[in-house]
């Protein structure tokens, strides 16, 4: 049982015009087994929240706390956070030239477990996870994200989710750019991880269609750097119908 607590999180970035405040007091608690959906207009700070949890150096935490099972996440380096059980499926996964998927995955698994996985088991797990995600086996010989299509990149993120078995996963628009079949395949992957490891999920999305496959327990409306409203799955339906106008007006 893991708990990720985000308290009064304020985050800014350095821009050419000086410091820019993006997150303005985010409060959120995610527990193992729970699925939270975060929806909000472009530029409202959703990815900033995701990156801040993962520890991207670009984002400066100016106030607030992030705790994982009571431990101060903000004091951890990026890799320590991952080893503590946090995972970020990125909106724009990065290409790493010359590093093969198979080498990358094995290195990551070894780093997380503190020892190299048993070869036969690992090969078996990898093969199975890839078959489940309908990924060609020759993918492992390709360089990380290099020349991957948008959908392939997202599958690759979920492949990592399944193999690396984190406690809490943040999925930043994992559903964007996926066709209907891929959406289903990727959702199944997330649901498998939820079932087998009691994963807690924070799912950033613009669309309710993924919520048909991955059922959220909570929906948060994210506007102008904080959570403007929270509710159950019905809130997502309402957002789809009405948009964010209501929040933006009251905010102004």
């Amino acid at each position, binding site marked *: 049982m893991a708990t990720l607590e985000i308290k009064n999180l304020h985050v800014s970035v350095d821009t050419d015009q000086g410091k820019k405040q993006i997150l303005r007091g985010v409060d959120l608690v995610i527990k193992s087994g729970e699925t939270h959906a975060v929806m909000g207009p472009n530029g409202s700070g959703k990815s900033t929240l995701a990156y801040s949890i*993962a*520890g*991207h*150096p670009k984002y400066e935490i100016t106030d607030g706390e992030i705790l994982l099972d009571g431990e101060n996440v903000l004091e951890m*380096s*990026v*890799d320590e*956070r*991952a*080893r503590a059980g946090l*995972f*970020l499926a*990125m909106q724009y*996964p*990065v*290409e*790493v*030239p*010359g*590093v093969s998927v198979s*080498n*990358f995955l094995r*290195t*990551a698994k070894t*780093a*997380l477990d503190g020892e190299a996985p048993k070869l036969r088991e690992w090969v078996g797990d990898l093969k199975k996870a890839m078959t489940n995600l309908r990924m060609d086996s020759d993918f492992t010989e390709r*360089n*990380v994200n290099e020349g991957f299509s948008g959908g392939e990149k997202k599958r690759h993120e979920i492949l*990592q989710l399944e193999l*690396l078995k984190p406690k809490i996963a943040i999925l930043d628009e994992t559903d964007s750019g996926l066709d209907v079949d891929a959406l289903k395949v990727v959702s199944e992957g997330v649901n498998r991880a939820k079932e087998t490891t009691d994963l807690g999920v924070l799912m950033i999305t613009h669309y309710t269609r993924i919520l048909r496959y991955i059922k959220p327990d909570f929906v948060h409306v994210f506007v102008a750097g904080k959570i403007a409203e929270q509710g159950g799955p019905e809130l997502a339906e309402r957002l789809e119908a009405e948009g964010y106008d209501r929040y933006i007006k009251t905010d102004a």
Partner: protein
Amino acid sequence: MAQHGIEPHSHGLVPLQTRNERPRSTSASDFQEINNRQEIWRYLPMERLNGLDAEVMSEVSASEVAIDLAPGVTAQWIDSSAAPVGSAGLPEDRISAIAWTNASKTLLVEVAEDSETTNPTTLTLSLEGLDARAFHLFVKAGANSKATIVLDHAGTGSLAENVEILLGAGAKLDFVSIQDWDKGSAHVSTQFTRLGRDSALKHVVVSLGGDLVRVTPSAALDSPGADIQMFGVYLADSSNYFEHRPYIDHIAENCVSNVAYKGALQGAGAHTVWVGDVLIRETAVGTNSYELNRNLLLTDGSRADSVPNLEIETGKIEGAGHASASGRFDDEQLFYLMARGISESEAKRLVVRGFLHEVVQKVGIAEVEDRLIASIEQELEQVGV
């Protein structure tokens, strides 16, 4: 006629000179004393030359070169005034001329005609003192032969070297020159290659250690259908100055040249220089040529100079291009790897290995690749990246 020679305005030191106008001579007095005002010595840290510019020096002795021959390959020391010495190229600069004059003996390594071996022949030159020494190697690959030759430089030394490589018609040769010197060493190596009709040379330069290492490989493509691949990998830390100047001279028709050098630098004071010259002469119809240099700077305070020069004297070519770039570590790549639990040092190692991989894998000789990967690991380990 299009000319993309050395840009005069970039330093204002030398007049624009096309690459083939440089004088050739085995006599040091035909060349100016070395100074940084001449383009070819422009970047050189003179204080690290360890006397390699002195007109008189002793030569490498037979006992300092360990020779491990593959079947079909022979080696002997011959008089440097005898044939075939000088048939692959003649000095274009002062240190090369000095080395030429001071090496009275030449190590002649011959691959028999029509012979084929997959085992590499290795020549290991190790020195144990900083006094300047001259060395001359001649590699002759007989017609339609196929061989691999590795020239390995190790120990502590100051070496002025000429390497000549001559390929007969239809010969295929992989030649690797490894510079893995200990601290304090200086090495200036001029490597002339001349390719026979339809022959193919893979020329690989690996620079890992030495306070001053300067390798200038040139290819005279004066027989039709020749194919040269020049690859280079280097890893420079604070103590290293590495300079590589590949030069491809397209003279005959339908030749192919491909140059790709990649280097990683780390630590304050690490300095690498790459100047790639390609000259496509009026006679070189049907040429296909490409040159590339990329540098990865792992820390602040290191410097990579990269200058591709392309001179084209005929429009009737298949293609000619170049690319050159030097960049810092990509923080986004590091973040991505670290976000999967991989430590910063391991992530950096993955990125560096990945960066060099493109060239390393082209070496295509298992033993050399393994050794290269091990050296890269060791280098990265040493400086704690």
